[in-house]
């Protein structure tokens, strides 16, 4: 399909922002600057952006514990995200959520989730709201191969089908659920499960933005037309560990270096658009420079920002109590 130059540049910008954000968080975490757990999305950018680039303000997504990528792809404020990860008072969630609960409901981002499989039921709810209020919106549940085995995910497939909800389930299969292989932990197949629940399914190369875009377009259109849920099985890879600090001894020696060389969604995208004459290298380089500046400024601002105070501890447990 034909994409505008602006769309191509914005999509690249979104993917590059995710990559540079995650690589930087990796470095800062290694330097002891970031509290708690972080789970990095570097390597998986084409999935988040291939889907979210087609969503608008009517639409909602829910993510996994590996939520920075989806958050950026859905248009959340990058400096506010960085402050949140650093636990600052004017972080995206007031420093109350952190990396694993990063969210912006106003942008339709229902949150990263510390509970594997926590997202799909919530997405059924967002889809129900869209269907009931006739907004035309759709809702996307990103789950990992690990989360694809959780009962909540499978129940959500069933509920979305039975209630004919405008949902897209995106299984981001990066080959590993924590330290075990998806080939080992997934009984049957993702597409087999979709078919078992009566949903259309599509498998896609999760490193290829355009391939993801195309299957997502079909799923989104189906949902908007009231034809119910679909499943996308995106095969991709994470460059980093399950969590930062994971020595990744369960991976083959040299695996991630090889991936960065041969399976890089940014490089693949660049090659595709430049060889087709859609964009020039210097335009893409300019975006990279802007992204680099954005991340540098976000980190500097996060380091300088104030943490919450004791007065903030007990706020926002309830609307009223």
């Amino acid at each position, binding site marked *: 399909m034909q994409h505008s130059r602006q769309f191509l540049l914005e999509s690249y910008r979104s993917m590059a922002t995710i990559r540079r954000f995650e690589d930087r968080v990796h470095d800062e975490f290694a330097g002891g600057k970031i509290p708690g757990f972080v789970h990095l999305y570097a390597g998986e950018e084409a999935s988040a952006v291939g889907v979210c680039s087609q969503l608008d303000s009517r639409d*909602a997504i*829910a993510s996994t514990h590996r939520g920075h990528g989806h958050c950026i792809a859905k248009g959340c404020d990058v400096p506010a995200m960085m402050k949140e990860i650093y636990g600052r008072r004017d*972080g*995206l*969630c*007031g*420093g*109350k*959520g952190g990396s694993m*609960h990063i*969210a*912006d*409901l*106003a942008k339709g981002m*229902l*949150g990263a*989730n*510390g*509970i594997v499989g*926590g997202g*799909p*039921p*919530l*997405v*059924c*709810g*967002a889809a*129900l*709201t*869209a269907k*009931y*209020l006739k907004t035309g919106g759709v*809702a996307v549940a990103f789950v990992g191969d690990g989360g694809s085995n959780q*009962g*909540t995910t499978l*129940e*959500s497939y*069933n*509920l979305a089908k*039975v*209630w004919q909800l405008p949902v897209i389930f995106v299984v981001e299969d990066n080959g590993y659920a924590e330290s075990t292989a998806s080939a080992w932990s997934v009984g049957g197949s993702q597409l087999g499960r979709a078919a078992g629940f009566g949903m259309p399914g599509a498998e896609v190369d999760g490193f290829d933005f355009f391939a993801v875009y195309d299957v997502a377009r079909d799923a989104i259109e189906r949902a908007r037309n009231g034809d119910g849920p679909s499943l996308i099985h995106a095969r991709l890879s994470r460059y980093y560990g399950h969590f930062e600090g994971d020595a990744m001894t369960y991976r083959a020696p040299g695996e991630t270096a090889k991936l960065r060389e041969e399976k890089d969604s940014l490089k693949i995208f660049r090659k595709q658009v430049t060889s087709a004459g859609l964009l020039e290298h210097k335009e893409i380089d300019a975006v990279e420079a802007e992204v680099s500046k954005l991340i540098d400024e976000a980190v500097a601002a996060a380091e300088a920002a104030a943490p919450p105070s004791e007065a903030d501890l007990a*706020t*926002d*447990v*309830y*609307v*009223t*109590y």
Partner: protein
Amino acid sequence: MSKKSYRDAIREAIAGEMRRDHRVIVMGEDNAGGAGTPGEKDAWGGVLGVTKGLQPEFGADRVLDTPITESAFIGAAAGAAATGLRPIAELMFVDFMGVCFDQIFNQAAKFRYMFGGKAVTPLVIRTMYGAGFRAASQHSQCLYPLFTHIPGLKVVLPSSPYDAKGLLIQAIRDDDPVIFFEHKLMYDEAAEVPDESYTIPFGEANVTREGRDATIVAFGRMVNLANQAADELKRQGVGVTVIDPRTTSPLDTETILDSVAETGRLVVVDESHPRCSMASDIARLVAEEAFSDLKAPIKTVTAPHTPVPFSPALEDIYVPTPAKIRDAVFAVREGRA
């Protein structure tokens, strides 16, 4: 004003709010009943008939039967609440919380706090609790202490048809997640209930009897048993104050502490198991904040630390009774441990 059952009072609250606010929807297993079947629609209207008549009035888009899939539909109710609807979801028996507690305590309860105050989750979960139905261990528990423990949830235990209607309307209009506990033995209990809509604020106890000799704090159906005990005690010349907190979260601590300051003697009646119960919670409150007001040790009347037994002979011993409450009042009057 007319005589209404606890069941009808609850249904009236729901119907009134659905007429008033388009965003209120109902979902649960067999909340209408008959989905996809060749027989009648609205076949059950809820397993004990509480939601009967709602789907015929409001339609199947608004009163939703669900498959038997609590983790998905309770989670969907949480997600719908966070995105603009005001769902009333039914957890048919609170004993089933095991399959959907994450959606309640890790998701709905925590959105507002985790997301820095930007989420509003106006979710109501209605659920049945309590023993005496011979439904045995997996259909008879109370469990409201577990929900009370969770910051971000509100927990409501109406003890009468009047309270049920007012508290449920309050719950539906409340912008926080509310768990609304309906004792399954009370549905046929009838009393005068206004026809119009009204609300009862959360965190405001109801004092059903007043007396200076002892304070009884009781929860849910136990309020009625405490009232029976109080009436019998009055005939014997002992006056007790009976406090129905109505909501365990938020809790009206002031009414409880003020009463203990007056009477110096406290009995707590809670159908829960004794450990980490509302009984232990109230005892902690008074022992810590009103110790010098106490003239005798606190006495609690609870179920035992056992699952709910099936045999009626055993279940009738399991559940607190007015006689046990009366004996507890005598004990605190004598200062006996």
